């Protein structure tokens, strides 16, 4: 069981982490108002990743977790990366020309389903 000093250390660590998270959030907010082009999204995601790392490492205690728990986290993330990466290959290399139905001025505003649709 933790003793009093451990609790103080933990509480202080949590407070610092919390402030860091809020600061990062405001940084993210601020960066969105700068004209950075495609780097806006990169900045937003990088900052989010740092926040996520703080939450995972400190709040969720990955710092103290054994190899197995860390492996679980890595595997979950890794499989998601596979989904994005391989689908991404398709989207990056597919040449798409909008169909006639997709030209903005031809977009129907209200969309009716066929009559008698059942769910």
């Amino acid at each position, binding site marked *: 069981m933790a003793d009093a000093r451990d609790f103080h250390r933990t*509480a202080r660590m949590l407070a610092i982490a919390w402030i860091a998270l809020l600061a990062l959030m405001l940084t993210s907010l601020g960066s969105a108002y700068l004209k950075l082009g495609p780097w806006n999204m990169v900045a937003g995601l990088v900052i989010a990743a740092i*926040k996520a790392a703080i939450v995972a490492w400190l709040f969720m205690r990955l710092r103290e977790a054994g190899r197995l728990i860390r492996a679980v986290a890595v595997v979950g993330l890794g499989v998601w990366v596979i989904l994005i990466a391989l689908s991404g290959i398709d989207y990056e290399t597919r040449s798409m020309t909008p169909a006639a139905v997709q030209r903005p001025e031809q977009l129907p505003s209200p969309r009716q389903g066929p009559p008698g649709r059942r769910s």
Partner: protein
Amino acid sequence: MSAIATVPEPRDEPDIGKLGMWTFLASEVLFFGGLFLAYLYGRTHWPQGWATASRRTDVVLGTLNTAVLLTSSAVVALAVACEEDAKRRRWTSRLLALTATLGVVFLVIKGVEWHADWHEHLFPGAKFALDVPGAQEFFALYFVMTGLHAVHMIVGIAVLVVLARGRDWARAGHLEIAALYWHFVDLVWIFFYPLLYLVERHG
């Protein structure tokens, strides 16, 4: 900094509950992960629509909500620390209740946002307000993403309320597991925030 200097020894055998919850959270990464793929598709193919639509989200309420959720994560982590300390255990219930309350605050703010979106005709459908291609798809994803997130929040709040009212024997061990779930729901929001609220705010 001395707060982070000493790291406890990693334990060899994870306990069953923690391993179970982490494994479940890995599956949740894939659940929300599919939505991220849909989002990435839309953002890369309809940048104008995405930007136009994202600017119509309420960045003040969104940022406030993010702060609320980040705080609630810190609070529940503190609750777990209190539970593990004999002298401070009596604070656990109150901190859990505070976390749950912050969760409810989050949902209320979300409700306010959705209410405004409804009246501004930002729900996808016949009367959708924005005529830029892709804008409607942004909002379709927005509502699915925040809606599913809210469902997860409700489950988390319910669990925290039960734990806040339970006795020590019921809480031991379960608290850290519930906190893991709560942190995960926070993690999802951490990524939703820039993706939904901060697309091209400039100009």
